[in-house]
């Protein structure tokens, strides 16, 4: 008997063994999308959710009304941060593979999102990132050694060994603490932005999550509250086409772009080429300006591609063509900015290679330093009794008794003893 089922099952265009096929993507040529004024009526902004805002064209030229006309120096700085993000990720990935940290997640192919948006926002604006926004921490000035120490859970770990690697937090840089639970930071950003409006301040908030995470309740809560109170917030959906093994269609991306998700609430959406630093920068400046002027929330969909594995626990060759990322039509964000700068005469292959070496050395030096504060296998170790701190501001007595009991039991044979 044939299967009588009429259930629609979303299927990616290619699975392992198939040719990569990105024909499903709607692409607009660079420079082809209008740039409305931030004061435009919401209904006149709808077209932004359907097209794809792009500035850099296939010949690496910057085009059209969204071109932010950034100084070459600024672009070189942007390039540097994206490269640092990648070099850092590559090194940490290797370190995990060597068994020296327990876990890692890279932003490979998506670096433009964090760096461009980091640049476009003001330092007083508050960021509520996902685990693929390490670039934001970097850009906002978090020290490489600090980031590594977090991943090492060592004596200088800002998380005091409590958190999985990559779950940074950076209060003085206005970047929130990363949660292992998807999407939960989205309503926090909206609440933060509401508080900013209540206080009459002009700081805005921004948050990031993945295509897959849009299915979570918190996505809906955040959009609803943002729309109702016209909160000054930028809600980013980083559509990197995959959520572990499921493609963006499983999250409902088959029919309309994610940028359209807020339209029904009157939240304008912008679909942007997430691998084009200039375009991401430009739309973010636009949305931030709009929010600051009381125009309310904007949803930005970054069309990008998760070029690497989901995490060090993942093997994407099990569920998508091995080299799918090479066929990604929007290229690589670092390559594209580099080629643009070269084309404009502000950069060269040689400078690029040199910078890359410098960054590698910087990362290597940081790694050397970080290890001095301890590794998983070698001391010095954090004092385990700190694990009872910060559960509460004003802790119940039982935590003190438990701390004592823990020390009694575990300090008999020192820290290395695990039984």
């Amino acid at each position, binding site marked *: 008997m044939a299967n009588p089922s009429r259930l629609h099952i979303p299927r990616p265009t290619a699975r392992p063994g198939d040719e990569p096929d990105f024909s499903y993507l709607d692409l607009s040529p660079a420079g082809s999308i209008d740039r409305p004024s931030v004061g435009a009526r919401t209904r006149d902004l709808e077209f932004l959710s359907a097209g794809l805002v792009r500035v850099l064209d296939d010949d690496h030229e910057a085009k059209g009304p969204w071109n932010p006309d950034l100084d070459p120096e600024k672009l070189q700085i942007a390039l540097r941060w994206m490269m640092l993000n990648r070099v850092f990720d590559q090194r940490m990935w290797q370190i995990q593979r060597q068994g020296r940290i327990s876990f890692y997640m890279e932003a490979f192919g998506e670096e433009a999102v964090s760096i461009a948006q980091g640049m476009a926002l003001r330092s007083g604006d508050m960021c509520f990132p996902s685990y693929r926004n390490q670039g934001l921490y970097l850009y906002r000035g978090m020290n490489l050694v600090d980031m590594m120490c977090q991943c090492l859970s060592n004596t200088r770990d*800002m998380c005091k060994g409590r958190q999985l690697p990559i779950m940074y937090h950076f209060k003085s840089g206005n970047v929130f603490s990363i*949660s292992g639970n998807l999407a939960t930071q989205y*309503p*926090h950003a909206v*609440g*933060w932005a*509401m508080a*900013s409006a*209540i206080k009459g301040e002009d700081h805005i908030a921004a948050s990031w999550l993945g295509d897959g995470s849009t299915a979570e309740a918190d996505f809906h809560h955040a959009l609803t509250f943002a729309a109702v109170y016209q909160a000054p917030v930028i809600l980013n959906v980083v559509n990197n086409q995959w959520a572990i093994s499921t493609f963006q269609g499983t999250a409902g991306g088959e029919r309309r772009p994610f940028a359209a998700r807020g339209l029904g609430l009157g939240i304008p959406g912008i679909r942007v080429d997430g691998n084009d630093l200039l375009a991401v920068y430009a739309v973010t400046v636009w949305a931030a300006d709009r929010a600051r002027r009381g125009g309310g929330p904007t949803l930005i969909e970054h069309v990008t591609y998760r070029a690497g594995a989901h995490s060090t626990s993942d093997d994407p060759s099990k569920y998508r063509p091995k080299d799918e990322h090479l066929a990604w039509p929007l290229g690589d964000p670092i390559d594209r900015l580099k080629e643009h700068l070269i084309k404009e005469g502000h950069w060269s292959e040689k400078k690029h290679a040199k910078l890359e070496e410098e960054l590698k050395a910087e990362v290597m030096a940081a790694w050397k330093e970080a290890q001095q504060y301890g590794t998983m296998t070698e001391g010095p170790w954090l004092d385990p009794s700190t694990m009872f701190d910060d559960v509460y501001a004003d802790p119940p007595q039982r935590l003190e008794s438990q701390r004592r009991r823990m020390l009694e039991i575990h300090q008999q044979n020192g820290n290395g003893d695990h039984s």
Partner: protein
Amino acid sequence: MAQMNMIEAIRSAMDVVMDKDPNVVVLGEDVGYFGGVFRCTDGLQRKYGEHRVIDAPIAEGGIIGAAIGMGLNGLRPVAEIQFADYIYPGFDQIVSELAKIRYRSCGEFFSPVTIRTPCGGGIRGGQTHSQSPEGIFTHVSGIKTVMPSNPYDAKGLLIAAIESDDPVVFFEPKRIYNGPFDGDPEKPAVPWTSHPKGEVPEGYYTVPIGEAEVVQQGSEISIVTYGTLVHVATAAAEKMGIDAEVIDVRSLSPLDVTTLADSVKKTGRCLIAHEATRFGGYGAELAATLQKSCFYHLEAPIARVAGWDTPYPHAFEWQYFPGLKRMVAGIERVLETTA
């Protein structure tokens, strides 16, 4: 001193802290213009404005999620969940975020949200307006769980909760909003004016979180309870003419083990009572802790009187509610047993 019922006392608590601290904001379903379905926020929006007393969309998860974000930006949000039965859509934000932000950021970030929510039955509300879910919150590290049993404590504890930098889930036993209740619905309703704890200062004061109260001293048995059942317990003891020590736990987490254990060591007998479902309820923690710390003093096993392990049935709420008879029977069992 003024006479207040629990609703007035709770409102007064919010009023006092809102007046004192401009960062205190209130949000929830129907709390603004209307003043809340139980009227706990009545008048606050008129007094403090629409930007500090905010009518929220009907999304408990969104209310708590947004409140957390506000708290991260320096406000002190007081979120009302209309009925404790409707707190579950916000459970993830409470457990995964509110309770853990301070810990995971080593104190860099925290959000001092207070969640107020009416709980308990006895108002013919059926199973979706009668639940007592405190036992699923006490198991969560990083939040505090409080349930007052009278207007004086309600105001003092709520002020302490709002001012606390730790998140607090604050349960309000709605059956005693308007008056103490001894468990017999046939008797005419009694107002709080008839009760010493209905005397409530107009101004600022706190009742510290983490301290149980010995409601009445006694030597024959310790009845350890909280919320509505405090009144049932005292009524039962009176009816039986026994010399019972009645303890109002008030702060479920942190728990004041010393006060409880001292009492049980003294009396040698202990009955634990709550309205929530018995199996896996908060009473289990009380029993587990007290049998441990008072083992050599116990003359009888610790017993529990609690809601049955079913949803709260509309028509049978007085068979479900652990009222006077069940309390008396429970006390009798504990007293009769000889070690």
